[in-house]
C-alpha cells in the first residue's frame, strides 16, 4: 500500500512532542541561570540606613557577599538573616565584606527588621530598584558572591545557609589576589 507510511508516521510524530513535554515538566521554570556569572559586577553607590556611603568600588580587593532582601520577604529573608550576621562576624577580619541591599521596602519596616536581627554590616535601601536590575534580581532573597577582582562568581537564589556561605567565601578567599 502506497500510504502505509502514514500509519506509523502519525503515532511517531507524537514522540518528539512527548519528549519536549517530559523535558519541560522536569525543569524548574523559576530557576533561571544568571548571565552575570564570571562577569564584572555592576558598580553601585548607595547610602546606608545609617547615612554612610557604601560603594562596590571602595571594596575592590575584598570578597563581597551582596545580599538582596526585604522586610516583607517571609519566610526566606527571616530564615537567612541570622546566617548573614554570623557569616559577617566570622569573616569580617578575613577580607570579606557583607553588604545588604533592601529592595521595594518601607524604611521603618526595614529598620525594624535590621534591629530585630542586630545586623552590624552595612545595609542600604535601593529605592528605584536600579541596583536590583543591574544584578538581574528577580526575587528576594538573592545573594551574590563577588571575588577580589570585582567579578560575580556565585549566585544564591533563596535563603542562604551557613554551609553555602562558608563554602563560597572560602573558595573565593583561597584564590590568589
Amino acid at each position, binding site marked *: 500500500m502506497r*500510504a502505509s507510511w*502514514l500509519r506509523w508516521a502519525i503515532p511517531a510524530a507524537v514522540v518528539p512532542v512527548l519528549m519536549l513535554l517530559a523535558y519541560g515538566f522536569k525543569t524548574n521554570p523559576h530557576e*533561571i*541561570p*544568571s*548571565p*552575570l556569572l564570571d562577569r564584572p559586577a555592576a558598580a553601585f553607590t548607595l547610602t546606608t540606613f545609617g547615612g554612610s556611603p557604601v560603594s562596590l568600588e571602595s571594596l575592590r580587593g575584598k570578597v563581597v557577599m551582596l545580599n538582596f532582601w526585604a522586610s516583607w520577604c517571609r519566610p526566606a529573608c527571616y530564615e537567612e538573616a541570622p546566617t548573614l550576621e554570623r557569616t559577617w562576624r566570622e569573616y569580617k577580619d578575613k577580607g570579606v565584606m557583607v553588604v545588604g541591599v533592601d529592595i*521595594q521596602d518601607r524604611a521603618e519596616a526595614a529598620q525594624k527588621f535590621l534591629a530585630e536581627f542586630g545586623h552590624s554590616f552595612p545595609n542600604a535601601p535601593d529605592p*528605584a*530598584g*536600579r541596583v*536590583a*536590575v*543591574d*544584578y*538581574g*534580581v*528577580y*526575587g528576594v532573597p538573592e545573594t551574590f558572591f563577588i571575588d577580589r577582582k570585582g567579578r560575580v562568581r556565585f549566585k544564591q537564589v533563596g535563603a542562604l545557609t551557613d554551609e553555602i556561605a562558608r563554602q563560597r567565601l572560602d573558595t573565593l578567599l583561597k584564590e590568589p589576589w
Partner: protein
Amino acid sequence: MIRGLARALAILLLLAGACAPSRAVAAPVDEKTVHDVAAQLRCVVCQSLSVADSPSETASQMRGIIRERLAAGESPEQVRAYFVEKYGEWILLAPPKSGFNLLVWVVPFAGIGLGLVLVAIILRRWSRAAPASAPSVMDPALRERIRRELSELDKP
C-alpha cells in the same frame, strides 16, 4: 481690574504648577516608547505578564528605569539589550529569531504546513478510492445470489 488680572494670573500659575512638573521631567521621553519597550520585557515576578501590563512594584520600577535610560539618550534597542544583559534572553517575551530559538518560530508553521499536506493527501485518497472500489468489493457470487433471489421474489 488689576486685582482681577492678578487673580487670573494666580489661577493660571496654579494650573501650570499642577501640570507642569510631571511634564517637565518626562518631556524628552515619549511614554509610548517606554510602553513599547516595557511590553517586550517579561515581568520578573509575575507569570507571563509584560513589564507594561504588570501592576507589581518591580514592573513599575523597571518602567522607571526604562524611562530613565531613554531620557539619558539610549535607543529602545539599547534599553532592551541592557535588560537582556542582566537577565538573559529569558526576559524577552518573544524569543529572538536566531539560533536555537528559531525553532520556536519555524516549527509551528512547519507543523501547520505538514498537517495541510497530510489532510490533502488523505482527502485525495478518499475521494479517488470511494467510487472506484465500491463496486469491486462485492463478491460476484453474492451478486449472483442476490440477483437470483430477487427474481425469485418477482415470481408470483
